[in-house]
């Protein structure tokens, strides 16, 4: 009997899993079709660029700064053990720009923007505001979803650059407090021999993070049911699923970048 119950639950779970992906695919298709056809919602896009970009900047800068200090402390200790202290600038530069900057920015934006979009759209859904938009002959997939997803795609690389810059600055500063190291020396040594290929793909891959964060948050928000509880669930799921898919995508993207931009 318990085996039968477990298998029934497993079948239901698998069914829900595929249904969720199917609905996500349909949602994406509607957003894509709406976003690519006029009228374009430029005013709303600009508002969303501000919401996603400017308003996330302080948090992203703070997170980037903290990561810079942590990497600086850890790298100095590890490199000293192996007598490779001269590698410190390059280690910090590559660690921040290629690895930590993009993923930290993605996770911070997923937490702040993903939850915000999920909760906002869910609240609009349960109070019939999205229906009111549609009844006013305005396509909500175009006005609400396409603009938010595009804003996430466009702002993530810029926020990543800000996080990287803050991380490098605080990392250098943390090192300079212990050992004399001019900023000029740090930059020259850190970026020595580096090509654009080393830094551009890791920064641009955050556009995929932005797409994932925006798409999942809009999807969770616009399919919400069930009042305040539904709104809370949509906000939580937006963050949890957004962060999870972002990290899974990172695995694929890192491999892809290593193959395509060796």
């Amino acid at each position, binding site marked *: 009997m318990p085996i039968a119950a477990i298998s029934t639950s497993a079948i239901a779970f698998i069914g829900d899993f595929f249904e969720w992906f199917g609905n996500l695919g349909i949602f994406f298709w509607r957003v894509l079709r709406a976003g690519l056809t006029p009228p374009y919602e430029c005013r709303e896009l600009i508002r969303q660029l501000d919401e996603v970009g400017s308003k996330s900047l302080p948090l992203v800068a703070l997170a980037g700064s903290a990561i810079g200090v942590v990497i600086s402390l850890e790298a100095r200790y590890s490199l000293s053990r192996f007598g490779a202290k001269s590698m410190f600038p390059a280690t910090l530069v590559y660690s921040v720009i290629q690895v930590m900057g993009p993923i930290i920015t993605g996770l911070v934006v997923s937490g702040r923007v993903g939850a915000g979009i999920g909760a906002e759209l869910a609240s*609009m859904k349960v109070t019939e505001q999205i229906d*009111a938009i549609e009844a006013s002959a305005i396509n909500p997939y175009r006005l609400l979803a396409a603009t938010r997803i595009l804003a996430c795609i466009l702002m993530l690389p810029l926020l990543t650059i800000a996080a990287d810059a803050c991380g490098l600055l605080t990392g250098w500063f943390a090192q300079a407090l212990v050992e004399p190291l001019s900023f000029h020396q740090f930059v020259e040594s850190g970026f020595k021999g580096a090509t654009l290929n080393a830094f551009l793909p890791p920064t641009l891959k955050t556009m995929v993070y932005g797409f994932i964060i925006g798409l999942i948050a809009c999807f969770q928000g616009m399919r919400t049911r069930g009042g305040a509880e539904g709104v809370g669930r949509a906000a939580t799921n937006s963050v949890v699923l957004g962060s999870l898919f972002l990290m899974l995508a990172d695995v694929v993207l890192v491999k892809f970048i290593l193959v395509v931009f060796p």
Partner: protein
Amino acid sequence: MATAQSTSILPEELEESGREPVVAVQDIHKSFGAHKVLNGINLTVNRGETLAVLGRSGTGKSVLLRLIVGLDKPDSGSIRICGEDIAGLTIDQLGGIRKKMGFLFQHAALYDSLSVADNVAFPLLHHNKALSKSERADRVSQLLLEVGLDGNLDRMPSDISGGMQKRVGLARALALKPEILLLDEPTAGLDPISSREIDELILKLQKERQMASIVVTHDLFSAKIISNRLALLDQGNVLIEGSFEDLERSDIAFVKEFLKQ
């Protein structure tokens, strides 16, 4: 007494007579899972006419309005708005038809992040892009004045009463000068005085604009005042349709019970 069968005019008959209804609902079925909500319903509304749709809670009155405005799709049957069948239209294709309709939601559904003025301006901003900022502001003031609101332009929806929210919702519904007005329980949750004020407002607007209106309501008194015709729904279909007097003369037990309230 008039029953649904005797007074409901089918779209074909009206087409033959050269007078097509503005809204023609024909043989609509709608279910949610195993629960059948609408079961082959037929209704028509002509220009300048107000139809009140009555019935117990859960009989599909609001679902009927959502189907007419295209927010939900029927399982089968046809809905013709100004002669055009809306079944199978995409969300963008429906846009042209929706511009002819104004919809007042049960809880007004005002955009809570926008002020009263911006709520009313919202459809104008998207569909009347030729309007200058000052022209749009004038139009918003005029619409709010029309629904009896003045001097509340910058307040947020959460700062105004339920009755005022309904008025703002009505002003927003009227913004694009619709030919059809759909009202979902316009007096629900309001005190008797506010309810009568909303009724008078609807009557005034009908007289001035000559729209076709469908009003879903539980308020019999309101239905009697504002409508030319009433349709009582039961078990997903129109049980009886006619004037208020027709309903009062009915021998059907459910109608008698319903009118006792």
